[in-house]
């Protein structure tokens, strides 16, 4: 439960609550937002970034931890497996077992391709499973894909690639329909109308949800369907390097059995990188809301074979990660908590901002409250601000929290914090990689033939910030599209003998640039194990 200091502050929050209810705080002007971001958003902290020295993005900056991986050599350098021994030979190889990978596999299978999923943990161990708040689609009468486009384009600071954003918004209703037909249980009223809410930065209520298990409900349904279609899934097996045909075409991947250490060769006509994000690299020492395997592997695989990154220097810090208790530090508190009416309130009980600004603005404002203004609440691991959850019950009626956000209630009740009665403490958590590998409107990378990317591993769909509910959407839209495109391409082509020449070329480039990290990449798993031997020194 809370410390005495926290309880003192809770009293102030309670004291101001009646006056705050029903009074919407002002939204910031464009200029105010710009200033706030430049001063407080982690993307603007120069010491968090390094310059990439090799490859297509040489000269550009990226988070220090990602640069280190980009500057590391292949795990296979000097221990290349015999590429003549083929363990798998498929039309379409999907790397990654989250929502994008599963959607790609389902559509490739439906198109008649021989498709296989390889994933380093289990199918469904992915950020998709943890997405709580919802999925956007402009399907109500007062809304349109154009309105959705404007919201997302502005929210992403006018940097999204128009051809990608167009697909996102135009195919959104169809994505919801597809999921619904698979049996995903969206929140509906008794007539079948979708219950939709706002997210930060939306101008229409277009957030569809499945309580606060939205991603879990989508992921478990997709996973079930992958099994129903008998699509082969190779679990606990990482792709550690792509294969080429010696020219500019992808030809499969080398896989690592995570349990036995054996290397396997998978030949494929087309490859879909759907490996997700990078939260477990803990940029700038932030905690993360991401799953255990989010270590940017696909970015490394794609980059080493020559595919450029886009917006690799923009990261999303979700404004409301758990700040207290420390056992769940960094876990996501869904934006839906704010959609349902909870305000962000400082230690003195003041609502210091509109609760539904975009995520980057909200994160920066919370950091400002806890640093410059000194109005954060001290916690064992740092500080945080209040998210005034009892407001939800006052606004929506008793029982709203249990009905609409049961996962949040359960998570806090494990630590005897009843969010229906007391506010909760939050602080930004590393949530999403806005950037990633660059693709064209057809889902293919422009630099490497027959290589596609889908989901969080893509850069450019959202620009430099992403709106809530557009990520669950993008994994479905671009996952499905990638599966269809990969299957169609596989029918047209034959591939040559596989080669790992590119890893030797990359090693030479690192050497020429004078870069030596001493490590290898992709990272595969975070390094959390504490070893007494090291700490004893």
């Amino acid at each position, binding site marked *: 439960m809370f410390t005495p200091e926290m309880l003192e502050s809770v009293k102030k929050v309670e004291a101001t609550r009646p006056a705050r209810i029903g009074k919407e705080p002002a939204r910031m002007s464009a200029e105010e937002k710009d200033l706030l971001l430049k001063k407080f958003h982690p993307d603007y902290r120069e010491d968090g970034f390094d310059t990439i020295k090799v490859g297509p993005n040489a000269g550009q900056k990226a988070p220090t931890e990602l640069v280190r991986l980009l500057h590391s050599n292949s795990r296979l350098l000097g221990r290349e497996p015999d590429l003549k021994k083929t363990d798998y030979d498929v039309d379409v190889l999907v790397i990654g077992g989250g929502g994008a990978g599963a959607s790609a596999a389902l559509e490739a299978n439906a198109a008649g391709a021989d498709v296989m999923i390889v994933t380093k*943990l289990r199918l469904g161990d992915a950020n998709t499973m943890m997405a709580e708040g919802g999925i956007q689609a402009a399907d*109500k009468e007062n809304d349109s894909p154009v309105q959705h486009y404007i919201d997302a*384009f502005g929210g992403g600071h006018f940097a999204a690639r128009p051809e990608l954003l167009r697909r996102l918004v135009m195919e959104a209703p169809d994505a919801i329909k597809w999921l619904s037909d698979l049996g995903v249980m969206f929140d509906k009223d008794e007539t079948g*109308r*979708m219950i939709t809410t706002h997210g930060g930065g939306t101008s229409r209520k277009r957030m569809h949800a499945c309580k606060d298990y939205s991603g879990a409900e989508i992921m478990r349904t997709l996973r079930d369907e992958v099994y*129903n279609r008998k699509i082969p899934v190779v679990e606990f097996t990482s792709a550690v390097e792509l294969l080429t045909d010696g020219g500019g075409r992808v030809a499969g991947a080398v896989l690592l059995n995570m349990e036995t250490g054996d290397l396997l060769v998978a030949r494929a006509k087309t490859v879909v990188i759907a490996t997700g994000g990078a939260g477990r690299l803990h940029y700038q020492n932030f905690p993360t809301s991401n*799953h255990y395997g989010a270590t940017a592997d696909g970015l490394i695989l794609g980059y080493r074979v020559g595919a450029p990154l886009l917006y690799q220097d923009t990261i999303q810090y979700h404004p409301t990660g758990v700040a207290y208790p420390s056992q769940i530090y960094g876990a996501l508190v869904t934006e839906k908590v704010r959609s349902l009416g909870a305000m962000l309130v400082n230690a003195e009980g003041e609502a210091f901002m509109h609760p539904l600004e975009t995520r980057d603005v909200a994160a920066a404002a919370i950091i400002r409250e806890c640093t410059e203004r000194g109005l954060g609440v001290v916690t064992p691991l740092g500080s945080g601000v209040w998210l005034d959850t009892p407001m939800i019950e006052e606004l929506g009626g008793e029982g709203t929290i249990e009905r609409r956000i049961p996962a949040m209630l359960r998570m806090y009740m494990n630590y005897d914090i009843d969010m229906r009665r007391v506010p909760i403490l939050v602080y930004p958590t590393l949530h999403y990689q806005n950037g990633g590998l660059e693709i064209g409107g057809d889902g293919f990378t422009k630099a490497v033939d027959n290589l596609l990317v889908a989901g969080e591993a893509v850069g450019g769909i959202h620009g430099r910030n992403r709106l809530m509910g557009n990520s669950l959407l993008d994994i479905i839209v671009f996952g499905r599209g990638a599966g269809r495109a990969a299957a169609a391409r596989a029918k047209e082509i034959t591939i040559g003998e596989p080669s790992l020449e590119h890893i030797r070329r990359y090693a030479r480039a690192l050497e020429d640039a004078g870069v030596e990290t001493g490590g290898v990449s992709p990272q595969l798993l975070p390094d*959390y194990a504490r070893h*007494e031997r090291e700490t004893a020194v």
Partner: protein
Amino acid sequence: MENMVDVYFFGKKYSVPSSLTIMTAMEYAGYTLKRGCGCRHGFCGACATIYRIKGKNELRTCLACQTQVEDGMYVASIPYFPTDKRTYDVNELRPDERVMMELYPEIYSCIGCNACTKACPQGLHVMQYIAYAQRGNLKKCAEESFDCVGCGCCSVRCPAGISHPMVGLLARRLTGKYIEPEAEHLNARVEEIHEGKFDSLIEAVMQKPIEEMKELYNERDIEK
């Protein structure tokens, strides 16, 4: 100095800070987890765990990422359990009483011991949702099982060998697909998009100069 407790991972004793979860305590002890670790935030069910507190008779199940360590905890993770998912074509099923009888007939062998409910780390009424499935009340089964993370603790403890998470999943898919009324506004919008109603409008915003887009964005009306 942190308060330390003794826990036993697979019978082997480690001294760990009492503030840790079972998962972070294993990492503190030096384990690099490959199995039994997924989202780490209670949504994926990868870290099903069974434990007993020294001197107590009761066996308890939990998610390792959501459970704080206690002194004298004997812990075994259950990173995989052979639940039995039946495969089907969801388009050929009908949401009636027979569907459970055909796909998961073992639910009728339930002896009513309620071990599944006691085992559920999500606090779900597992035996109750199985009872709904037995009676063909798929919608109630779907609602009661909705917060299931599929960890399988229920199935581990079931003397009848029921794969409860799979039963709930089938009920939810049938409910979402067949039982709940369709969203007419969604169907209408999908139709409009296919007919090309928004094609020229979206082209137009895609072509607009950034300055115009900024104006459009900053001045757009926001639904109350």
